[in-house]
């Protein structure tokens, strides 16, 4: 088990380096000159050269890449073009807010999806089941940039029971977390239901029922434990998507996290900060899917690679 966890963690490193390389290439090789984009085409050539030098764009690509990787290894992501502060610190300052939002959304998604999915699978074909399926269809089709404003209209403007935007106590977290978490709740509800329905049809469930265990015990102890593995895999993948979704949710709710910083960096054409934000979110994505793999192996021995000793 520990071996698997180590192996998986070790395998995640090249993925992060590859992702970093892609981000580097994005800024350095994509057609069009970032200096042009930043200063506009009418800028004085002295200013352009100065910026080119500041970004080390006047050096060969390989040298720039080496410098970028060396910086990455020591946690140096360059400095902001706007505030001249270290990018790593800017991102680190915003990270807690984003994590708070992402875990809040995860909690919302799980709180809806697990009970709803289990209830739907336990009583297939009933109105509850149909309602769960309808919810997962609607939830998946509802973009967060629409749901967020709708929730603001309903709960902050009409009912006046929750704040419109900003970060503060749990009341501030509720609307953004629901906005970000609902799409995930829809996917997880559907996954839990489908996975559990499949497990309920298995022989071991029939055996457990035949030896006299109650419906609830069989469902909770036998079927659910097996049904959760694919749910955890999806959870890992979706958590990364959740992190990417913070860019939109944080914009809607003026939430001071990495997503908002990304949009600010785009608007200010602050490329080092943009690069740092994207790297942070991509790293979060890789970490989440790695963790999901490890948890999955703990839950389901069948997904572990065969051990060398018998």
């Amino acid at each position, binding site marked *: 088990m520990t071996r698997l966890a180590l192996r998986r963690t070790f395998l995640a490193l090249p993925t992060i380096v590859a992702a970093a390389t892609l981000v580097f290439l994005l800024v350095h090789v*994509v057609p069009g000159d970032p200096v042009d984009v930043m200063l506009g085409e009418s800028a004085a050539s002295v200013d352009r050269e100065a910026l080119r030098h500041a970004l080390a764009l006047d050096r060969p690509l390989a040298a720039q890449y080496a410098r970028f990787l060396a910086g990455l290894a020591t946690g140096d992501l360059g400095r902001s073009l706007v505030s001249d502060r270290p990018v790593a610190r800017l991102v680190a300052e915003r990270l807690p807010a984003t994590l708070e939002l992402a875990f809040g959304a995860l909690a919302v998604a799980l709180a809806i999806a697990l009970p709803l999915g289990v209830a739907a699978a336990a009583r297939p074909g009933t109105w509850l089941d149909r309602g769960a399926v309808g919810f997962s269809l609607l939830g998946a089709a509802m973009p967060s940039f629409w749901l967020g404003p709708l929730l603001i209209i309903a709960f902050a403007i009409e009912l006046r029971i929750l704040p419109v935007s900003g970060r503060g106590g749990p009341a501030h977290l509720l609307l953004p977390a629901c906005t970000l978490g609902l799409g995930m709740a829809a996917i997880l509800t559907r996954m839990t239901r489908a996975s559990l329905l499949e497990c309920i049809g298995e022989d071991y469930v029939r055996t457990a029922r035949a030896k006299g265990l109650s419906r609830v015990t069989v469902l909770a102890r036998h079927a659910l434990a097996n049904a959760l593995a694919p749910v955890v895999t999806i959870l890992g993948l979706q958590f990364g998507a959740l992190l990417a979704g913070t860019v939109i949710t944080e914009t809607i709710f003026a939430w001071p996290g990495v997503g908002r910083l990304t949009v600010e960096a785009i608007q200010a054409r602050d490329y080092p900060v943009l690069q740092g934000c994207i790297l942070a979110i991509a790293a979060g994505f890789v970490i989440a899917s790695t963790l999901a793999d490890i948890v999955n192996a703990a839950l389901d021995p069948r997904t572990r690679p065969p051990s060398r000793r018998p």
Partner: protein
Amino acid sequence: MRGTGQIRTAAALLAALACLAIAAPWLAPEDPGRQDLGATLAPPSHAHPLGQDTLGRDLLARVLHGGRVSLVVGLATVTSSLLLGTAIGALAGWSGGWPDELVMRLVDVLLAFPGLLLAIALTAVLGASLRNVLLALCLIGWTGYARLARGEVLRLRGREFVEAARALGASDRRILWRHLLPSLTAPLLVQATFGMAGAIVAEASLSFLGLGAQPPTASWGTMLNDGRAFLLVAPHLTIVPGVAIMVTVLALNFLGEGLRDRLDVRPPTDLWR
């Protein structure tokens, strides 16, 4: 037959949406760019059934024209990524060896990013425009089709009918085109249907962030962004384009599910969430 009714309903709804988008210039009560600064943020009225926006432009005209943007971007993204991805994936799976290894590692790296994040980064660097949104969505979108096509080709290339075709003297190209490609259509069709829903949401997301359609072009994403500052006084600015996006995505997801049940295909990977 399972899924037939669902396919019919969804297809009819999509056909209706497509007709509305195509006929937008004739159906719209007025030009989507025509401003009426005396009636900014006006609620729905007889002359403007869905109300007017921040510059007094007719919301019905804008939502109809916005549908053109969404459907064109969705269709163009899916068509080009489907063609590109299938070609790359099928060739990689067929040839095996280092080309296959190279393509799959590239796909892995691209899939190590959440699709939306990569699209945001690409359009931010390339510059905000619908053309760049399309480019970014294609650069990411082909991976899903490539993975699918490669898997299917790998699965089928050892089958007897391929061996039989080869024994009869068929060239590699003929086997790929005439024997393998037809077996790929069902899973690719299902993936493309879900992919179109994803592309439409992705375009709207990027336009919402100001990275897609630029004013004065009417797009559902930009309309939602415009409405964000006026939730208190003019909620119709937000409600109208949102309903349009949701109905379209719902119809596409519904069609995708119907096709999947009908054609018995495994669920595809969702790239954009």
